[in-house]
């Protein structure tokens, strides 16, 4: 054994498995640091995270499998997780369990042990288990399960060294595991018969024992494999046998929980009566039938208020910085051709700078959302909103995707991956752009601040949020009935224990979203600002109304006029397609104004009614370029982004027309 440890550097392939919310990502982050590669599993919208870590001459290549509750064929995540273990055969599978919810968590462990012997258990959240009155004895549990069990508190980085040690021991074969056998009771004879029938068959390298088990469970993927691998006659014999055992799935699930109960009886003690925890006390209030919703609203109003309060001075600071940079560039590059200087100081810098000044808003908003997520409140928010979400044919989980969209629609649409049902996902993607993102709210806030005095402006902003929410419900209702009819997907969601948020998790959560936003700024928005600059600068020497951009604006005038817009506003909306915040920059260019003076110029050129119509239209009119791109990639077709663009244009146009015409009839404009 000693000699083996000194052997030359060896690669150990590690897969990390676990339920959602068990601290798997925390452990993955600790193990791999920032040496991570994040992408998608081929052909699936399931996140694939890979990383590596060096220790004592070993290179651990870690694959973070998607968080799943089981290994059936019912979701893409579960198929990805089990296929990786079955077909890629990692040297070690680390199953992370939440010690405070150990019984339920063990269900995944049993299923993993059905796939492979080379398992190490990371028993995380030992502190929370203590809070619940559980006394867990890791050594006894290890004895009972037959694989290494490492107690951990990942949030405090406790137990990670021991976990690494166990991974290396099992990965190198220094330590052999002998998992406690699972007895499938009444199903054993059938399983034995199935294994006999499968003997000698080519099963794509998969273990016959596991295939037999999955046949008994009625697994669709395994049925497909049967059709590929087995002769018709064998298949018919198998099906005849299975028809006699319709209770197969129930017997298997029963056997697994019986195994779990045996193991836990040996490895832990539970209080006779469940302890009333901190979580119970909070849940008593936040999931209250009457108090739940007001509390939720209160929390989110606070989050949005704080976000804008804290980020506003930072954004102004960045704005001022970019204005200076722009002026400095104009001076410093004076010797270069004038078109080049103009491209930089009038196009690229204000364009990209304008977008980057949203960075504080996005940073702070995601920090708060991450805080709510990490503490465990988000699951309660889904519970509280489930009834409301039913109005548009969605369930509570979809609320979370819509919430993220208040920061930016791009992560909002990506968050729809948590919805298991394809139809639900499409619907949540389609209504997502109706949620006003931080960029659109910033444009709205600018206009509302410019045209309405203080107490009134809050009311107007509030109504805008309410209007968008109303549209979400309305469009969701219509789409559900007309475009995507069908049965509602079941709502089943775990409510984790509350816990103190973890700084590292928050940093990673916020960090990835910032990177995504910066990428957008560096690519789409940079290109768009150059394009807008070109359109507004050529033909060379022409006045603005005569440039390409100006001509486009005039072309749109017949439509714009119905809503009280002049050509500049139409152009601003046009450029807003690249990125919503660009509208403001365009208006500044078109009105030849900067900062405070833009407010004055706008006041001279439009009434508050027209300003309001403009804000409503820009809030709803079309998903931005980046959103369209992510819709395309998440739905794998151009159909749905086009549907979203069409309905939102109609909706925005209709509402704009209505508000303007009614307002004017009432003598407001």
């Amino acid at each position, binding site marked *: 054994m000693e000699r083996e440890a000194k052997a030359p550097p060896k690669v150990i392939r590690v897969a990390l498995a676990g339920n959602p919310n068990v601290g798997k990502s925390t452990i993955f982050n600790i193990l791999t640091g920032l040496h991570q590669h994040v992408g998608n599993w081929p052909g699936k919208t399931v996140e694939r995270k890979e990383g590596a870590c060096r220790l004592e001459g070993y290179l651990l290549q870690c694959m973070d499998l998607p968080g799943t509750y*089981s290994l059936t064929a019912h979701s893409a995540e579960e198929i990805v997780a089990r296929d990786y273990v079955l077909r890629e055969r990692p040297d070690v599978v680390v199953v992370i369990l939440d010690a405070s919810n150990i019984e339920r968590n063990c269900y995944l462990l049993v299923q993993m042990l059905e796939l492979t012997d080379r398992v190490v258990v990371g028993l995380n959240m030992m502190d929370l288990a203590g809070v619940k009155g559980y006394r867990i004895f890791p050594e006894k549990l290890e004895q009972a399960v037959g694989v290494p069990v490492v107690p951990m508190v990942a949030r405090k980085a406790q137990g990670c060294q021991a976990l690494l040690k166990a991974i290396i021991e099992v990965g190198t074969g220094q330590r052999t595991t002998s998992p406690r056998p699972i007895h499938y009771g009444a199903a054993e004879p059938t399983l034995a018969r199935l294994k006999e029938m499968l003997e000698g068959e080519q099963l794509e390298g998969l273990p016959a024992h596991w295939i037999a088990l999955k046949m008994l469970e009625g697994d669709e993927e395994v049925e497909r494999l049967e059709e590929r691998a087995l002769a018709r006659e064998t298949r018919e014999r198998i099906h005849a046998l299975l028809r006699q055992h319709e209770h197969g799935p129930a017997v298997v699930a029963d056997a697994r929980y019986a195994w779990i109960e045996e193991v836990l009886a040996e490895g832990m003690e539970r209080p006779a009566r469940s302890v009333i925890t901190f979580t119970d006390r909070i849940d008593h209030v936040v999931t209250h039938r009457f108090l739940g919703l007001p509390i939720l609203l209160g929390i989110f109003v606070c989050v949005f208020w704080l976000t804008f309060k804290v980020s506003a001075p930072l954004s102004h600071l960045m704005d001022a910085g970019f204005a200076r940079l722009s002026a400095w560039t104009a001076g410093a590059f004076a010797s270069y051709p004038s078109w080049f200087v103009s491209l930089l100081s009038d196009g690229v810098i204000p364009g990209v700078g304008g977008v980057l000044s949203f960075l504080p808003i996005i940073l702070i908003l995601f920090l708060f959302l991450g805080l709510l997520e990490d503490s465990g409140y988000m699951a309660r928010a889904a*519970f509280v909103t489930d009834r409301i979400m039913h109005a548009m044919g969605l369930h509570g989980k979809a609320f979370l995707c819509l919430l993220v969209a208040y920061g930016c629609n791009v992560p909002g649409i990506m968050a729809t991956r948590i919805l298991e049902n394809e139809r639900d996902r499409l619907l949540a993607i389609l209504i997502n752009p109706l949620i006003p993102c931080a960029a659109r709210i910033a444009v709205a806030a600018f206009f509302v601040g410019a045209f309405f005095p203080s107490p009134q402006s809050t009311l107007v902003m509030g109504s805008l949020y309410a209007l968008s929410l109303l549209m979400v419900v309305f469009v969701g209702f219509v789409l559900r009935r007309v475009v995507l009819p069908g049965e509602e997907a079941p709502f089943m969601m775990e409510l984790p224990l509350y816990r103190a948020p973890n700084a590292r998790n928050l940093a990673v959560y916020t960090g990835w979203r910032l990177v995504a936003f910066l990428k957008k700024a560096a690519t789409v928005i940079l290109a768009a600002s150059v394009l807008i600059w070109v359109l507004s600068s050529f033909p060379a020497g022409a006045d603005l109304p005569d440039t390409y951009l100006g001509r486009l604006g005039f072309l749109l005038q017949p439509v714009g006029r119905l809503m009280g817009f002049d050509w500049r506003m139409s152009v601003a909306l046009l450029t807003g397609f690249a990125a919503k915040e660009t509208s403001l920059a365009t208006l500044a260019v078109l009105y030849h104004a900067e900062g405070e003076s833009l407010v004055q110029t706008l006041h001279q050129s439009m009434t508050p009614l027209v300003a309001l119509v403009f804000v409503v239209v820009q809030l709803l009119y079309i998903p931005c370029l980046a959103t369209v791109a992510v819709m395309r990639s998440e739905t794998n077709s151009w159909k749905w982004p086009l549907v979203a663009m069409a309905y939102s244009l109609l909706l925005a146009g209709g509402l704009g027309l209505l508000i303007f015409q009614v307002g004017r009839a009432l003598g407001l404009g």
Partner: protein
Amino acid sequence: MAVVKKPDSMSLVSLAPGQRARVEAICCGHGFRMRLAALGIIPGTLITVLRNAGAGPVIVEARGGRLALGRGQAARIEVQPISSEGEGG
């Protein structure tokens, strides 16, 4: 699986908060049953209702964890209530 209704079994949604019960049967759908099993609920499991407001989703505790279930899903779970004395029931 055939659902054999016992005379005193009832739907989970008709339980009041705080009430304990044993799951008797789960109605409709192989996939639904497998998902519930993964979340800890199979026939025979003891559950406690934590929240049931008469409308909207319910919260139940099962195997030491808590779950939010849509009302439609909860209605498909047949249970037999147990009084707190006769837990062996």
